[in-house]
């Protein structure tokens, strides 16, 4: 280990002269790449959230004319009334951008890059070059996804799951033409980026830990990023294969997913394929993807809750075990998205069984977080609030998973707003809270400045109230039987009595959107005018806070510090301070906690 670290050190010993290009654009430094991921992710997030606000206007006041539609959607909103195809396009791209570009790349990309080398005591990622390529592929795929919004017939509009035949046939909807091609190309590049990133994270965690940093001393953030990367490597290639086969069906006349189709007065030649095959391939990634999004957020939360509670995280071993259990189970539950797809009901039974098992490690995590707070000395910084908020939405959203994961109950709530409510709370809002918590907590590390805490408080409270205000009522309209992805419900007088709930939801959504402006302002303002950060503002034990505030290649001047203890010696009896950095040797007679 030390030999590796030493060799690496020499590598970074003499600095090359840096130009603007190598420092800010084609940087191979993990800290700069993390910032690039964050800023690109936030930019995509603004677009994704703005889209949701647009379709919330339509859902609350269906088929009415709005000037903002005319301005933003142009000919897709004749006389200011949104076109149904555009509604579907907005829903589709909102989902794609939020799941992949914001919560996968923006969250995992940012914090894996920033924290893996810093928290394990490495000079940089195992391969700076691959890391740089990974970011630029992500940037390219983002650009292509954005470009698809400007295609004549509109972007992809088949839902973020792009089930064929709808996504395969341009005759089926305008978005399945060039817009869908660009979607598929963008996602293929995205997957390549994600794989390069994940491989790099795995190799770095395995090989480049500093002296003394055994696996059982790793902070939970690193465990989460490490396991997330493994899930990514296992499942993303399957989505790539689905995308490639779909491209072949679309462009080269193959019949992987298509059979017996008559559309627009014409019998198509496709024979023998099955859309159900696509569903299997898609959800083989699609479900683990939920945990690719969620685990890093949980890792970040573990770290922040422990630090700000001034207490060790409760049940470190159980936390690691539950991360591993969730990761393993996540790869064998995909069929719960397909209970009523026409697959054999026996398979449904199997997937119900595996799916409900996930509740066990999830429950362990939730209880451990709560116990960590118990008898703590809680420092309620904005990052801490978002972490507590995450645990709250993780519980609220996770519990309804017991209904959706049960094949029987899924029959009547499948694809209704109940599902929308469930996954937005448990992975959307929770992961977003994880992202915000991470930004507030590590902003001093990333930019050397402090973010304004009072703006952070405003941001949290408005967001927290609105998040429940938006998604709690959705359970009700879903249980009432309202399908998702409906442009308007006015064609069903049966649903007239829930129209007012939709207005309530939209109002909360707009307020939530406004609250994000506070965050953006705080973020940008603090980069330039924030109070300079001290080296370890939160009095945290992990190694990143032992590195100087000023960023430098190789992270530490001189030798990398050695690690002597786990990351959670907060308020340890016999210590003067309520924290002990990982690099502080054990006192004479001090026992290291066996874990």
């Amino acid at each position: 280990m030390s030999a590796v670290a030493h060799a690496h050190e020499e590598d970074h010993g003499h600095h090359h002269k840096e130009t603007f290009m190598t420092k800010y654009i084609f940087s191979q430094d993990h800290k700069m790449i993390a910032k690039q991921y964050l800023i690109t992710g936030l930019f995509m997030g603004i677009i994704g959230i703005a889209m949701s606000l647009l379709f919330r206007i339509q859902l609350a006041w269906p088929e009415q004319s709005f000037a903002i539609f005319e301005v933003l959607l142009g000919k897709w909103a004749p006389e200011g009334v949104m076109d149904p195809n555009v509604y579907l396009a907005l829903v589709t791209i909102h989902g794609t951008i939020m799941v992949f570009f914001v919560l996968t790349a923006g969250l995992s990309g940012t914090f894996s890059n920033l924290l893996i080398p810093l928290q394990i005591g490495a000079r940089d990622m195992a391969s700076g070059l691959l890391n740089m390529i990974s970011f630029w592929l992500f940037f390219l795929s983002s650009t292509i996804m954005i470009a698809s919004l400007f295609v004549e017939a509109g972007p992809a509009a088949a839902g973020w799951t792009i089930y064929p035949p709808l996504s395969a046939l341009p005759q089926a909807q305008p978005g399945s033409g060039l817009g869908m091609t660009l979607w598929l190309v963008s996602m293929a590049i995205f997957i390549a980026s994600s794989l390069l990133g994940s491989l790099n994270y795995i190799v770095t965690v395995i090989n480049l830990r500093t002296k003394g940093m055994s696996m059982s001393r790793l902070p939970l953030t690193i465990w989460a990023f490490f396991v997330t990367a493994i899930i990514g490597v296992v499942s993303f290639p399957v989505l790539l294969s689905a995308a490639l086969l779909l491209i072949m069906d679309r462009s080269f006349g193959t019949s992987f997913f298509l059979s017996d189709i008559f559309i627009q007065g014409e019998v198509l030649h496709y024979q023998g394929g099955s859309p159900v095959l696509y569903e299997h391939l898609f959800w083989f990634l699609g479900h683990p993807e939920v945990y690719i999004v969620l685990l890093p957020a949980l890792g970040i939360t573990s770290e922040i809750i422990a630090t700000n509670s001034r207490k060790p995280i409760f049940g470190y071993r159980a936390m690691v075990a539950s991360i591993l259990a969730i990761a393993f189970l996540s790869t064998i539950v995909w069929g719960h998205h397909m209970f009523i797809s026409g697959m054999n009901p026996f398979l449904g039974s199997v997937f119900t069984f595996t799916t409900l098992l996930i509740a066990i490690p999830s429950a362990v995590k939730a209880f451990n977080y709560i116990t960590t707070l118990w008898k703590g000395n809680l420092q309620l910084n904005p990052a801490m609030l978002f972490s507590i908020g995450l645990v709250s939405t993780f519980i609220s959203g996770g519990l309804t998973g017991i209904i959706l994961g049960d094949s029987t109950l899924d029959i009547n709530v499948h694809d209704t707003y109940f599902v929308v409510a469930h996954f937005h709370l448990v992975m959307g809002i929770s992961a977003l809270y994880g992202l915000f918590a991470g930004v507030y907590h590590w902003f001093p590390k990333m930019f050397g400045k402090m973010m304004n805490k009072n703006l952070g408080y405003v941001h949290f409270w408005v967001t927290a109230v609105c998040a429940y205000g938006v998604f709690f009522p959705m359970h009700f309209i879903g249980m009432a039987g309202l399908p998702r992805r409906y442009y308007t419900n006015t064609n069903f007088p049966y649903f007239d009595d829930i129209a007012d709930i939709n207005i309530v939801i939209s109002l909360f959504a707009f307020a939530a959107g406004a609250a994000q402006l506070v965050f953006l302002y705080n973020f940008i303002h603090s980069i330039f005018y924030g109070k300079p950060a001290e080296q370890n503002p939160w009095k945290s034990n992990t190694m990143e806070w032992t590195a100087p505030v000023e960023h430098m290649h190789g992270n530490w001047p001189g030798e990398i510090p050695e690690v002597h203890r786990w990351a959670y010696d907060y308020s340890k009896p016999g210590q003067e301070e309520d924290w002990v950095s990982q690099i502080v040797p054990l006192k004479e007679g001090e026992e290291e906690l066996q874990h």
Partner: protein
Amino acid sequence: MTAILTLTVLVLIGISIWQISKMFDLSQTERNTSQIANDKDNNTQGKLMFAFLVFIYLLTLYSFYAWGSVLLPEAASEHGSQYDNLMWISFALIFFVQTVTQALLHYFSYKYRGEKGKKALFYADNDVLEAIWTIIPVITLAGLILYGLYTWTSIMNVEENDEALVVELYAQQFNWKARYAGQDGVLGDANVRFLQDFDGKNQVGIDATDPNGLDDVIVQELHLPVGREVIFKMRSQDVLHSAYMPHFRAQMNCVPGMITEFAFTPITTTDEMRQNPDMIAKVKKINKIRVEKSKDLVAKGEEALEPYIFDYLLLCNKICGASHYNMQMKIIVETPEEYEKWIAQQPTFAQVIQ
């Protein structure tokens, strides 16, 4: 009017957030410039955490009070009560866990809010506790899984039998058709290749050389006799659709290239359901809303909305294109006599293609 009102509200919310931010910002630069939570912050934020717990509870109570009536409409199929039982048991469990865990989480956040000089308890592990909260979910979930699987198997086990009525649900962008098997009780073979035969009169692509198909009946409105098992065979001619019949707790995707199945026995006729007190209340409420809306419409010179009468619904519940939101079919559950009378009046496939 609502639009203007709402916009005003939104603008006000926007302005107030901006103002609050500004205020905080100004107060920030002048005194205490530390951006790390101090005792005062901990105190305020801790109390807000407790207030938030109250908010979650109130929101839950209010939602049930205001919207509780829209939850799960009365079931109209035989397996509906099985489904509903499982649903309410799961819900009771969720409700209990949600109430307790949210209380602990937010109460601890309030109770243990930080104070300078206070020291947290060094408490890293407790195997007994952890075993308890692993084993309790294991037992609870084992129960739920077994109960769920038992119900699932009994609902999804479709057995062909002579008593059952076989109906094909045929989906296309953007409408539904239903095909009854006719006198012989057997659906004729069908494939999209036959759709263009007989100048498009062959609406669901029946193979005209198959004698079983000649007496098939194709309709745009689904009629079901009460008390008799119906086995649905689902087909789609273009993209994925999903046949969703919420009142019957029934849903199955329609997949091009394959035939999917679902079966249930309707137990309440449309007429009976219309007499259900809950339904009467719901329809009354809906019609009140529609009358209000009509006033606005008439003022704008548009036509008033028709009064609503309850009917069972078949909705498309898999995104299928532009008019996905309007792909529906009326379902009428009636007495066997009414049903026989109705089906006898429908033209058979042989009559249609003549």
